[in-house]
């Protein structure tokens, strides 16, 4: 099957200025060589700790941020260097749902104004038609048509997120980047929004890039899951496999850290020391090997640690610090 979105070796670096002359003294390697693809109708989950670059990656894909290097292909067209004007048609097909529904909705606009804006920008619609579309969108996300004349502050967090989703749906996109869409919501409301996203996908054939830090949520909504650590993807597999047979030490640690809502369960927890290293001055070798102080870290210094397919559809970074003995042997043979 051909990919709807294809990202190859994408890098997003932010310059760091310092010194008296404010010259560039370094760069934050927020996204540092990421490749991934999303098929039509598929959900790719993207997990990682804060600061690993997952939101930056999402924003770079919809071109809200300028990629430093690499290539983004959408429906076979290279969109990496498109200029603002040429990007506009693309914005119909790619939309974004943000984490904080309070900050991502203009508080001075009524829901109608918020939802009509995409139609105004992309033009060519009579006002009666726009009203009809807005009513349709509200119905689609489970809000009453009367909500159109109210303002964002009049809604609860879950309802605001529904408005954010309605705005993203306005132009019938093919891909929606969801950046932590349920993190700010209460448990009982979170499941309502997750169900809505699943339903919309079934009905409209949408693809999602679902960025989140809650692994149980990501597993629930995704077909495949990519694990990101310090600007790089370290493991990708379908969502059942990655939770059942994680290969990378970081994935294992991340999974074991989830608190289970079951007090009778005794968890054998891998406790990580320390924090994610700084992306300004990342370790020269395996970033995670460095964090856990692995004896084979020196071997990885200055080396590329490419993703290899260890089982069909299961990709993992070829990193001697982060794989089991047996897995490393299999990977090294490749």
């Amino acid at each position: 099957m051909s990919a709807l979105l294809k990202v190859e070796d994408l890098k997003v670096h932010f310059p760091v200025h310092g010194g008296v002359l404010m010259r560039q003294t370094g760069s934050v390697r927020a996204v540092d060589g990421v490749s991934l693809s999303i098929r039509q109708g598929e959900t790719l989950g993207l997990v990682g700790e804060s600061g690993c670059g997952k939101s930056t990656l999402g924003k770079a894909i919809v071109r809200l941020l300028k990629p430093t290097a690499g290539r983004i292909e959408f429906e076979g067209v290279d969109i990496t260097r498109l200029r603002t004007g040429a990007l506009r048609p693309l914005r119909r097909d790619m939309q974004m749902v943000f984490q904080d529904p309070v900050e991502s909705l203009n508080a001075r606009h009524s829901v109608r104004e918020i939802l009509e804006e995409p139609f105004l920008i992309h033009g060519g619609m009579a006002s009666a038609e726009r009203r009809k579309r807005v009513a349709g969108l509200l119905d689609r996300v489970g809000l009453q048509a009367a909500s159109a004349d109210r303002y964002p502050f009049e809604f609860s967090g879950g309802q605001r997120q529904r408005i954010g989703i309605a705005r993203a749906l306005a132009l019938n996109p093919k891909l929606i980047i969801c950046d932590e869409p349920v993190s700010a919501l209460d448990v009982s409301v979170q499941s309502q929004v997750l169900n809505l996203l699943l339903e919309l996908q079934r009905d409209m054939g949408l693809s999602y890039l679902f960025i989140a830090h809650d692994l149980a949520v990501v597993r629930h909504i995704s077909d495949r899951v990519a694990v990101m650590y310090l600007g790089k993807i370290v493991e990708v597999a379908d969502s059942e496999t990655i939770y059942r047979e994680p290969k990378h030490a970081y994935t294992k640690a991340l999974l074991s850290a989830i608190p289970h809502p079951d007090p009778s369960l005794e968890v054998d927890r891998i406790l990580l020391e320390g924090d994610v290293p700084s992306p300004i001055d990342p370790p020269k070798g395996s970033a995670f090997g460095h964090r856990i102080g692995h004896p084979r870290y020196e071997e990885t210094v200055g080396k590329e640690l490419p993703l290899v397919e260890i089982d069909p559809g299961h990709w993992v970074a070829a990193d001697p610090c982060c794989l089991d003995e047996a897995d490393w042997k299999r990977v090294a043979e490749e």
Partner: protein
Amino acid sequence: MAESILEVRDLITAFDTEGGLVRAVDHVSFSVPKGGTLGIVGESGCGKSVTAMSIIRLLPQPAGRILQGEVMFKGRDLTRIMPKEMRRVRGGEIGVIFQEPMTALNPVHRIGRQLSECFLLHKKMSRREAWEASVEMLKLVRIPAAGQRIGDYPHQLSGGMRQRVVIAMALACRPDLVIADEPTTALDVTVQAQILDLMKRLQSELGMSMILITHDLGVIAESCDEVVVMYAGRVVEKAPVKELFANPLHAYTRGLLASIPRLETTPKTELPVIPGMVAGLKDFVPGCRFCQRMERRGATLRERPDFIEATPGHWVEACPICYGGGKEAGA
């Protein structure tokens, strides 16, 4: 039941608003087992934080006040003692860990100065002694190179390190009780695991009791002995942790447990949901508030259901619809 360190009896906390007095905490009672952890779980607006702030009397002034009830702590009622005495209790005998470590710390003071303050206020120590005691506290919460980090400003520390400093401040005077209000919500899962592990170890090392407030049922399951489930200002269920997760009795607790995605559920299937949302504070009915959310009409909304002990140690708000009168418990 075991001896308790703190007992909250029939607490009502209300806020003055333009629409009149509204009750954020409505007849709440529970007790904290000595040396154990009581979890308070509930969604935003259920009154869990207001309950905690009522205990330590840090309600927003002048709007918030305690209308009724007792908070018994070591033989005295905290709702009645003088502010001066309350200041001694707060930070001395009761430590508090707040959710957001960046706002709980003062950004313009070095962490050493903020930590020393606890010792200077509550213990008769010289500045130098307080500073040394602060270094010890940082070591206790396992901050590497404590001697150097003590001179850092909060912004120089990572989120996890900041939360360790906040914990160090809460524990500085070896309190008998620690109130932790969403201590790990702002943190990553791996850091959350570190912090929960640290809190558990310190609790047994120092023999403290704890109230842990969170919305995360996973955190509750792993860290608590007793659990109180709050909904719309009231306690709807109260039980030992294993009992609560094995036999949830109230419809709200059941709904909450069913709606979390778990690692065992089949991906991409519809999750059970609790329809609707919590009513606004002003619209609370006197009767069963979960029935209010489910848009049930009639008698259940008019009168407050009794809070009954369904099985030994397991209490539930006995609304005839939300709690089937024990037929599930027998099954």
